């Protein structure tokens, strides 16, 4: 009798400890699932956040490109004075060259990868008179090109805008102060 009772008690306690173990395993499994789910959700949140910022960073890259371009554009072969006005000069834009470039801009519109390039005289200030072959000497703005897209406020840099002028049949170099403006496309 006693033996039977003992074995019954033993089997009961082993059953109890088995169910306890199972419960612990279940608890652990749930915990692991919850933690995994949590990290998956966090990952998804980060991904969504990143993708939503993609357009913004594209615009930022465009803006940075414009900023870098404006610092070196005046000294590029398409714009620079070279040695047309004596020795070579820094930040000097050849106005005659730029006017010719403006006339053939179709070949160059994709060359710089920006939305627009403009040169505006600031001293002397000739207002908003656009530069053409007629108004060339007393104009205020050389609109080199502007694409028909949404563009950001332009970044600018000071340049010296030089050209050949004449006084009493004598040709001389005339340099004026201008700003070179480069605008980038707004991708947002």
């Amino acid at each position: 009798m006693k033996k039977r009772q003992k074995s019954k008690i033993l089997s009961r306690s082993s059953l109890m400890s088995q169910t306890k173990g199972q419960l612990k395993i279940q608890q652990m499994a749930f915990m692991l699932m919850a933690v995994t789910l949590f990290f998956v959700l966090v990952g998804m949140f980060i991904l969504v956040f990143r993708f939503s910022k993609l357009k913004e960073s594209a615009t930022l890259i465009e803006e940075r490109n414009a900023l870098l371009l404006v610092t070196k554009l005046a000294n590029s072969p398409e714009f620079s004075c070279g040695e047309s006005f004596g020795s070579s000069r820094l930040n000097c834009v050849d106005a005659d060259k730029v006017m010719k470039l403006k006339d053939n801009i179709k070949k160059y519109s994709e060359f710089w990868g920006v939305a627009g390039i403009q040169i505006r005289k600031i001293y002397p200030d000739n207002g908003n008179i656009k530069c053409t072959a007629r108004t060339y000497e007393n104009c205020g703005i050389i609109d080199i090109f502007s694409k028909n897209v949404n563009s950001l406020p332009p970044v600018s840099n000071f340049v010296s805008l030089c050209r050949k002028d004449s006084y009493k049949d004598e040709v001389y170099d005339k340099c004026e102060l201008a700003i070179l403006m480069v605008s980038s496309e707004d991708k947002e």
Partner: protein
Amino acid sequence: MRKNILRKKSGQEEMVGFALIMIIVAVILLIFLSFSLRKTEKETVESYEVNSFIQSFLQYTTDCRDNLEYLSIQKLIFDCYDKDKCIDERETCDVLNSTLKDILNESWKVEGDRPIKGYKLKIIIDESEEMLIIKKGNVTKNSKGATEPFSRAGKDYEIFFNAYY
């Protein structure tokens, strides 16, 4: 009774552990968010602007003429130091002063709510002699400045320009 207390204790420990994990993850997330939300602010004045401003205005052709040509600002600085006159008898120093004032007025507008609060332009000879100084607006804590040195006939000229914003 003891078993109950022990069970309660281990349950509490697990909860504390879980809460700790949550707090650590939240802190990591917050740090990540603060990094990704930080925007690169655009400067009011860029260093290259003041640098190129000096280089550009030095090339400006003034209306002062000597026997050969119309003088640039750079040549006018040399002539001003030599106390020369323009062909129309104006003092080169007066022309230099007025032209630079006009150029600065047009290029760096400081009136009203403009981002630029003031500027200062100095021309120094041989590191000590102050040839010209033009100031306008307020001197603030934020500024961008540049210098442009050049020389002629053994004299060292240096132009200092500061824009305050």
